[in-house]
């Protein structure tokens, strides 16, 4: 047991830490789910595409571009890259079955990873920081000990997650494009016979996922202060676990799954000091397994996973 277990300030600190990690997992889970919904594929290169997006932000800021503008430009480029990969690589392979697609996303993972190492090197570099990141960039709430405060970076992460969720809701639930996307997700063939352009909806999913991934990678890099070519390696695992927890085909499920996973990963080692940080991951995955035993479709999923 942690000696601070009854300390409100300590527990609140764990809560904000858990929410911050959870928000980052949620971004990755959202990206995975947005691809999965219309294609039933899991893009194993989702994390590497995201890291590439973060490097593009970094490169643009080195040319003097404002970091927020750089983020928007990189998101647009990522959208194009994601949509292009779906159209040019994944769709032609899809006719041949599921394994060529899985292998293709694995190959993409390796290629993008290597390209980043070649261009930007293997040493960590200072991360682009769109959110205020100084030691003083915080609001003190409780004096402690230990003190409880909210960093602007954490607050910014929550706000961006809420804005992304609101934007996705508007797009998917309130536009004709979103109706087409959801129709393809619900029943691909039925959507096709109504004249809905299935391929374009799949490109849309890949594109939005890639753009969201870029946001995720920039925030992850800012959280750890540095950017390197493996920045998204472990986050992808957490994102997959979060997507599984939430139900693979559910957008709100991805967000909830990410936040719940963030809580577990933070609170379990935080409360039980015998459990080291690395064990936290194992426990988090164990919790995911237990949830899936009870509810194979996850929190919000509409159907059990079939093709993974």
């Amino acid at each position, binding site marked *: 047991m942690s000696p601070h277990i009854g300390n409100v300030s300590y527990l609140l600190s764990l809560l904000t830490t858990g929410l911050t990690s959870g928000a980052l997992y949620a971004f990755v889970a959202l990206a995975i789910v947005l691809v999965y919904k219309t294609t039933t594929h899991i893009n194993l290169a989702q994390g590497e595409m995201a890291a590439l997006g973060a490097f593009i932000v970094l490169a643009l800021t080195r040319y003097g571009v404002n970091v927020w503008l750089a983020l928007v430009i990189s998101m647009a480029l990522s959208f194009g890259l994601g949509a292009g990969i779906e159209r040019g690589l994944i769709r032609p392979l899809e006719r041949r079955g599921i394994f060529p697609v899985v292998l293709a996303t694995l190959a993409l993972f390796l290629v993008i990873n290597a390209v980043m190492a070649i261009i930007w090197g293997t040493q960590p570099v200072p991360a682009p920081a769109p959110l205020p990141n100084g030691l003083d960039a915080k609001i003190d709430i409780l004096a402690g000990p230990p003190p409880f405060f909210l960093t602007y970076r954490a607050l910014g992460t929550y706000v961006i997650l809420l804005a992304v969720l609101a934007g996705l809701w508007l797009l998917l639930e309130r536009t004709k494009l979103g109706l087409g996307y*959801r129709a393809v997700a619900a029943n691909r063939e039925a959507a096709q016979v109504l004249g*809905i352009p299935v391929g374009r909806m799949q490109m849309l999913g890949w594109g939005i996922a890639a753009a969201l991934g870029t946001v995720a990678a920039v925030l992850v890099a800012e959280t750890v202060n540095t950017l390197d070519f493996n920045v998204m390696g472990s986050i992808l695992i957490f994102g997959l676990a979060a997507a599984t927890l939430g139900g693979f085909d559910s957008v709100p499920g991805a967000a909830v799954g990410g936040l719940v996973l963030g809580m577990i990963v933070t609170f379990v080692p935080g409360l039980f000091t015998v459990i080291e940080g690395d064990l936290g991951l194992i426990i988090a995955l164990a919790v995911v397994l237990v949830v899936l035993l009870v509810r194979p479709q996850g929190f919000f999923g509409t159907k059990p996973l079939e093709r993974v």
Partner: protein
Amino acid sequence: MTGTDPLLRVAGLHAAYRSVKVLHGLDLEVRRGEVVVLLGANGAGKTTTLRALCGMVDTQGSVLLDGVELVGRSTEWIVRQGIAHVPQGRGIFGVLTVEENMRAGAWGRRDAKGVDADIERWYGVFPRLAERRRQRAGGMSGGEQQMLAVARALMARPKLLLLDEPSLGLAQIVTRGLFRQLEEINRDEGMSMLIVEQNAELALSFAHRGYVIESGHIVLGGQAADIRADEGMRRAYLGY
């Protein structure tokens, strides 16, 4: 009443799933305002015929809709030319609401007001759908889902409606009600229909003409009443 000019003229249609050939030079016709039923045993190629008309399988030959060649075109394009397809098993979007399903059916249309008006119009024909407009379509009964599938297809304002086994999985009384409604839509709206149906007796009682398909060929065609009346034909091809 049915006219004599053909709305749909299919000539020498071949279709294949990858390397498996299913249709071997099929000919058929649907005239304007006509209901035509396609009969045949399981595996004869009925469903494939409908899918071929929509460009969902690889096809060769000729399919003219109002004189426009459809073979080799994408499903999206064919739907815009005026073919609507109610697939086997209905293909309802279960997690979408009834009304979202209807709007998805109007995907290719740009006239927002016309779409709204058509939704109300089909709610008038199928009042059960109006009651459930805000509910998830997956929660409805099989009969209601079939009504929704028909209404959704009609939202595209097609020239020709294709129906694949509309009676599948429905109770007899529900099927009869559905066919009565289809009959009204044909009569009141002049909607042309090509129907694949296992229940030959019922389908022939409602259709103007019928074709019997066997191993990917049309083996006979004629007035529905004549097919019904001919005992030899019934025994040989229709099994009742």
